[in-house]
């Protein structure tokens, strides 16, 4: 089975915001601060001998907090954690297998770089939250 980088990103970010890291969306009434991550694109290459083992994915990582500088601080810590991956790095994470049991799995990342970030305000619910939306390019072995 091909490896996907999502669990590795989740695992890396879990050390922030007291572990309040969610894929795609936050639970209702989740207290800030928290992080939402999701893959928004993926690219892979084919060689003459078949598909490359390396692939790249774009991740959107949103850091939500009450207050502009709190969200900036959280985003800064996320960035420091992620861009520190500059070479082949194995990330071991917990995984739920098909039988519902927990196993350990390893994803190998080749590098993470920040592509852009933008300050936003999320007014969809109370309290209004400051949000820093970052896009990262993640290179990984699949």
């Amino acid at each position, binding site marked *: 089975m091909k490896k996907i980088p999502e669990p590795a990103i989740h695992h890396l970010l879990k050390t922030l915001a007291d572990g309040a890291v969610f894929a795609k*969306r936050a639970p209702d009434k989740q207290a800030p601060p928290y992080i939402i991550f999701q893959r*928004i694109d993926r690219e892979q290459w084919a060689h003459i001998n078949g598909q490359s083992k390396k692939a790249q994915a774009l991740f959107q990582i949103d850091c939500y907090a009450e207050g502009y500088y709190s969200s900036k601080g959280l985003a800064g810590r996320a960035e420091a954690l992620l861009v520190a991956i500059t070479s082949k790095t194995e990330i071991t994470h917990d995984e739920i297998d098909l039988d519902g049991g927990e196993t350990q799995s390893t994803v190998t990342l080749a590098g993470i770089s920040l592509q852009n970030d933008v300050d*936003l305000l*999320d007014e*969809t619910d109370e309290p209004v939250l400051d949000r820093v939306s970052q896009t990262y390019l993640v290179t990984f072995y699949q």
Partner: protein
Amino acid sequence: MIASSAKVSSGSWPRQKAIKLKFKAKLTGFDGLSETLRELPTRVENKVLQKSVTAAARSVRKEFQNAAPRDEEGQSPASELYGRGYRNIRVQRLKRTEKGQKGARITTGNAFWLYFYELGTRYQPARPWFLPTFQRLQKAILSELAKRIGEGIEKESKK
């Protein structure tokens, strides 16, 4: 060589600045025409560039409208108030640009919910539609721009 630029933005919503995707492009291969453009009065040169940039953006407006998310079953209250999202997608000429640059904006107008689709919210995953469309059409925009500039210069030089 002719340099031009275009700005593309995905609209705005209350208390929220528009997200701007800017791209600058250098078009080459206009050796003869570039000289002709320089010989034209600045007013005419500006007119040719502005018309070309706006026309290039207009040429892909339909693609953005087709790519915009839409609810086939009904309309949300916001959509009833401001009109269907894809109908809000328009091209505007940028009036304030740096010297020597001309620009056009593809805007989502009042359809602020298209912005939620693009970037997501805390309760809604991002479903980007604007940026992928823009990336897909970048080459088409540039070739349309080159074509329009060439036609514009020829037309003005014959006057």
